[in-house]
């Protein structure tokens, strides 16, 4: 085919329309990724310029710091707990919203509110909610006499961690619920009817019809949730800034501190690369499991 004619074919047209998106991706996705990878192997000055090859020096610097390993473990625990709870609650909400009842549309609208509101603003509202003296949560707990003296949520490492975790979960539940709901609605009703004819209990229907047919949706939704939760900067930055001390820092907030507070762009880039490797590994494992199972339902 002559070159001029190619662009008049359907494939040519497809390439033509894809071109702007490709250029955009190259400029705004691949260039920063490649530059960060380069930074991690170079000495970097305070303006982010590469000034000399450093090999694995930036990685060694981070690996030698005991708190770095604590933060890696914390990031993984944070992600695992948050995604597990979001998946569980999201699934329950989706199952409830899938039942036909009066006011279902209103309930669906209400569920989406945390997802629709901006995360930093939600985090700021929760910061006030957690306030010991003026916050709604402790006021309610005191009034209802559930706690004589409720914890000061953001003051202790453990309670601060769980307070952050809950806000992340609160923000993420609507997404999971809506995706699961969409998945549930795609399951043919006849399968449930057939199960009923076979005498299946509601649990058996869930176990042998709903879950298997929802598994691909579950895989995709949890993968996305893992990626977002691992990189959730907003909630922790607004609520505790990684404190008390560094007890609620996860990798992403630690990267920010090194880059923009201490101007150590090299170690920050090394941590960004480590984050990239961790999330890429998780994504590949998920993709393998997804395609093994036959892909999209």
């Amino acid at each position, binding site marked *: 085919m002559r070159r001029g004619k190619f662009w008049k074919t359907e494939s040519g047209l497809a390439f033509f329309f894809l071109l702007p998106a490709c250029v955009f991706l190259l400029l705004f996705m691949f260039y920063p990724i490649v530059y960060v990878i380069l930074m991690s192997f170079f000495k970097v000055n305070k303006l982010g310029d590469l000034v000399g090859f450093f090999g694995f020096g930036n990685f060694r610097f981070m690996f030698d710091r005991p708190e770095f390993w604590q933060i890696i473990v914390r990031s993984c625990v944070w992600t695992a707990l948050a995604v597990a709870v979001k998946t569980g609650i999201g699934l329950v909400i989706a199952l409830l919203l899938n039942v036909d009842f009066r006011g279902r549309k209103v309930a669906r609208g209400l569920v989406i509110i945390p997802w629709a509101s901006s995360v930093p603003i939600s985090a700021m509202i929760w910061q006030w909610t957690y306030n010991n003296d003026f916050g709604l949560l402790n006021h309610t707990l005191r009034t209802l006499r559930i706690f004589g003296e409720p914890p000061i949520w953001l003051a202790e490492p453990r309670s601060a961690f769980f307070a952050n975790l809950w806000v992340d979960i609160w923000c993420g539940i609507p997404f999971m619920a809506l995706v699961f709901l969409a998945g549930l609605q795609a399951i043919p009703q006849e399968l449930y009817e057939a199960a009923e004819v076979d005498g299946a209990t509601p649990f058996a229907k869930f176990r042998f019809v709903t879950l298997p047919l929802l598994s691909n949706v579950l895989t995709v939704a949890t993968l996305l949730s893992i990626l977002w939760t691992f990189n959730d900067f907003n909630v922790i930055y607004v609520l505790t800034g990684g*404190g008390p001390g560094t007890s609620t820092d996860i990798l992403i907030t630690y990267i920010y501190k090194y880059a923009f507070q*201490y101007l150590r762009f090299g170690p920050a880039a090394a941590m960004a690369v480590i984050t990239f490797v961790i999330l890429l590994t998780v994504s590949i494992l998920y993709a393998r499991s997804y395609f093994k199972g036959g892909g999209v339902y």
Partner: protein
Amino acid sequence: MRRWIVGCVVVVVMMLLLSAFAGAQKKVSILWMEYDGLTPDYALNLEKAFEEANPGVDLEIISTPWDLGHDRLISLLAGKEPPDLAVIGTRWLLELLDMDVVEPIEKWVSKDLLNNIDPALMEGKVKGVLYGLPVAAGTRLMYYRSDIIDKAPETFEEMLQIALKIHKPEEKFYAVGMSGKKYVELTEYAYYLFGNGGYFFEILPDGSYGKCTVNDEAGVGALAFMNDLVNKYKVTQPGVTAYRRDELQDLFIAGNLGIFLSGGFTAALLEQRGVTFKWDVAPMPHFEGKPQSTIIITDSIVLFKDSDAKEEAGKFLDFFYSDPWRIQFDKMVGFPPVTKSLANDPFFQKPVYKVMIEQIPNAKGWPLIPEWPECNDIIWDNIVATFLGEKDPKTAMDDAAREIDALRGM
């Protein structure tokens, strides 16, 4: 159809002409910090008034909360998009000089302006070169409830005795405010450290900073006392590690604190919010047998080398430092005036300004070292570890000093 095309062409040409006209204006941007007490209207009015006085200049004031200011400035610099001017904590200046981004400012502002600033406040002068003009400078002092406390304590030991008497946690009234959550700087510890005759680093004969000294007797003693207030005598608000300085200030304004150590801006806020209780100010307490000392904090305004509107930026500085704008600014932020022409203004003869000025001779500033933000965090983290009972004061400060010395290659 032809009419439609002609119409479109006319619109495009007009837009091009307009944009060319707009391009003729020189743009000056300033990263502006949101001081407590400074209303957003001030920045808007300043911008409008300056543009009216200088029709060829388009001024852009980029307002930023203080606690995000450093990181935002660094993001702009690292992104090679620095503003023309920025308000900075003067302690960041060495970090910026290390990055080689700051322009000597002297030749861009008028002689009148330079002569109108007290030379003692020119902390932005490094090795004889002036890089920053002081925006605000003030010592930190003590606020107390004069309706509950008859006489302000002079020492921290006296403060403890008073605290034991007035602390009523069951009524949500706490004797002493203590912040344990990071907020811009490590001021809380500095109050007790300086009042105990200590400092963060040894000062070498040439004026440079030697090894970290927070683990000496003064440093450990200061932290031990703070920790006793929090954990032994329990006279602070509960959960100190959850409170930033600004949140603590809200607690004092709400009437829940007896004693609060802070800056002049708190007085401005107390007046603006019209609190109903009686309050007063006093010099920062010190430990018995130690000289009175507090921290003096100066903020500066700097010009960046990459600015292509240095002349216009200089014009803005002359405008901003003129009496009508400075007096509004100083009144709102609660710092004593930095310009000589306002020093005798009746407004600045109030007790809060008198105390701030009287403390200046014995006051100490932040260490001017490029690694200070990281040193600051290291000390903070170890103080928090002490409050949480994870470390004793001696171990915490030993760890902090060791880590800081290693960081600075000492």
